[in-house]
């Protein structure tokens, strides 16, 4: 019978291969699902994995969608490695969009036109601070009151969504907007500069790449990053070494809140250029999947971000080109994560065939 035997050391090869195996398995199940729905499985897989890369415009859209996913996932990686389970990235993202968008809106309504070099960083900074502020609520409740950060951060997502509605339907509504719930379109000086003309890809992508590099340095070359990870892996050892659990908590939450807020500001000032009730699209939750599929590692997160972005866009294309139900994307995402977690056991365990002991003759 099949048995799981602990490996003496975690397998590095499996560490890299397990996401690929999970992806392959997801593709197989996807093909079966397509067959069950009466669609050509090769066409179906093509829509999800090939079509989104078909041409410059498509690739730019994939990267555009991947940008916020990567940014948020980087922050979450820091959290999860420190054993701080921040599930509310969506809420921090929304507050970042409100804060960053708020800066842009303020500049617009007061007719202040700053040079792009100043306006854009201001907007992004606003986003970072907004996200941090929201994350701080979770941090303080965990730090001072011991309240589970999972539940608090999650509840705050719902509160954040209502806050967006409250502002967009009220104080921030565009007075010339026929009472539609949206803010004025931001002044062009606050828009994120486009990277490739003719596409929507903006400098946010470069910011994301910079964040990847910085995060790599932080996690693997800086002492503070090391402290956080020890705190996550072996809390007792961390305590013994004098690493403050409280500081680690705050560092992790501030980083992830700030990054999620940055992503929010980028979305508001990038493709949207205003704030509407529709800025909440679940990116904060998809980023959790990106984080895990990317192995909580900055480089892995880049690949995972692109992959999940392709899946999302593929799902849209699947609907308009093949008539596939929209819910399929959600199934694939969930499936990918579940299979990934299952495959991950292979990193620590080996599958062995055990024959029952034969008594010596």
């Amino acid at each position: 019978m099949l048995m799981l035997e602990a490996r003496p050391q975690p397998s590095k090869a499996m560490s890299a291969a397990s996401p690929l195996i999970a992806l392959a398995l997801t593709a197989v199940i996807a093909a079966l699902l397509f067959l069950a729905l009466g669609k050509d499985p090769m066409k179906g897989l093509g829509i999800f994995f090939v079509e989104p890369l078909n041409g410059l415009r498509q690739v730019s859209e994939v990267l555009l969608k991947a940008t916020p996913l990567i940014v948020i996932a980087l922050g979450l990686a820091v959290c999860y490695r420190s054993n701080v389970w921040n599930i509310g990235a969506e809420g921090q993202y929304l507050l970042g969009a409100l804060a960053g968008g708020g800066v842009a809106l303020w500049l617009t309504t007061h007719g202040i036109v700053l040079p792009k070099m100043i306006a854009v960083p201001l907007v992004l900074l606003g986003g970072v601070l907004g996200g941090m502020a929201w994350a701080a609520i979770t941090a303080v409740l965990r730090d001072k009151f011991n309240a589970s950060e999972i539940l608090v951060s999650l509840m705050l997502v719902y509160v954040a969504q209502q806050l967006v509605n409250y502002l967009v339907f009220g104080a921030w509504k565009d007075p010339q907007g026929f009472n539609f719930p949206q803010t004025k379109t931001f002044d062009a000086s606050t828009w994120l500069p486009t990277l490739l003309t003719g596409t929507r890809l903006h400098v946010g992508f470069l910011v994301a790449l910079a964040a990847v590099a910085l995060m790599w340095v932080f996690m693997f070359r800086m002492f503070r990053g090391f402290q956080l990870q020890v705190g996550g892996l072996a809390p007792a050892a961390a305590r013994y070494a004098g690493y403050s659990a409280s500081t680690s908590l705050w560092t992790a939450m501030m980083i992830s809140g700030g990054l999620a807020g940055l992503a929010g500001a980028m979305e508001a000032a990038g493709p949207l250029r205003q704030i509407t009730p529709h800025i909440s699209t679940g990116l904060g939750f998809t980023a959790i999947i990106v984080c895990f599929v990317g192995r909580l590692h900055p480089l892995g997160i880049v690949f995972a971000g692109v992959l999940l972005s392709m899946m999302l866009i593929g799902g849209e294309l699947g609907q308009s080109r093949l008539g596939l139900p929209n819910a399929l994307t959600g199934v694939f995402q969930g499936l990918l994560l579940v299979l990934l977690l299952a495959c991950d056991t292979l990193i620590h365990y080996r599958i062995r065939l055990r024959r029952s002991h034969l008594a010596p003759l």
Partner: protein
Amino acid sequence: MLTFNKRSLLRWGGFACLASAAALVGCGKKEEPAKPAAQAAPAAAPKAEPFKAAWVYVGPVGDAGWTYAHDVGRKAVEAEFGDKVKTTFVEKVPEGADAERVIRDLAAQGNKIIFATSFGFMEQMVKVASEFPDVRFEHATGYKTAPNLRIYDAKFYEDAYLAGVVAGSVTKTNTLGFVASFPIPEVLRNINAFTLGAQSVNPKVKTKVVWVSSWFDPPKESEAAQSMINGGADVLLQNTDSSAVLQTAEKNGKFAFGWDSDMSTVAPKAHLASCVVIWDGYYKKAVKEAMDGSWKTERTVWGVKEGQNALAKIADFVPEAAKKKVDEVKAGMKAGTFEVFTGPIHGTDGKEMLAKGVMADQGWKDKVDFYVKGVEGKIPSGK
């Protein structure tokens, strides 16, 4: 050099995957330049290419409400034009940045007319319209236009007014309830029209409003309906898309209306009538105009007169007097002599919003941001 252990196999396997992916992408790219070449030859083609029309929906086609009604219209276009038209639709498109991608893709796929059925698609329609000058874009319930982008809407408030007439005649507690989605002008118009209609037969009527911050959320709609029933309302109208309000009304022995589609079978004891919208006529006209070149930018708001709105399936047990009044008002709407928003109209603070005898123009109706006297409470976040 070549070692056949697990590690090297995995490494080579990984490279192989990447290589094949790159190859696939390369093949994909090659397809693209071939497509425009094929499309350049249609003039000489023996059989005419069907005219492609696409619809972008915000909700699921099965919602038996807003999106369902649009889809019925789409199917009417298919039935009318047969082989000459090929329709596509994409449902559950999130409003916001993602919609732009979907709309652009539909335009790039050769659709010559694209309908977007929710105001949240407005900015995205504007952007894509500027990039595809030979495609026609139509946006429902919006207000921005362009040479190739026009807007259309329906007069839901006429349905709401007629429903109000029925409600005012049927209510025993003189308290009506309205399950509302978001405080946009359209919804406020409907609340006000409902109240005005009821007040026209029963001046003592009051309307309670509960906001559920969603277009389609059955448990919330149920809860909202229940709480208003608890507060004394016995006839309910809604602006949300599910039949939950009707079902809650039935459960409590109260009354309600269907919204967006015929919901008479859902709750036979509670159903007074259904406020329906029929997009068939408009969609057929729009596609025809796009096909024969007479399409031009304009704003089309049709209502009861053009057969786009109606109060359908009025229940038998509604009193005769109410039915007569409904018919009277309908006749006035059809003749163009009756305008729902005719002064004097006062806000909840008593301020006069429309002078006596004045019929509201489109501009006034577009900007409705207040409750008429008789509606309880305050509009969320503001006025």
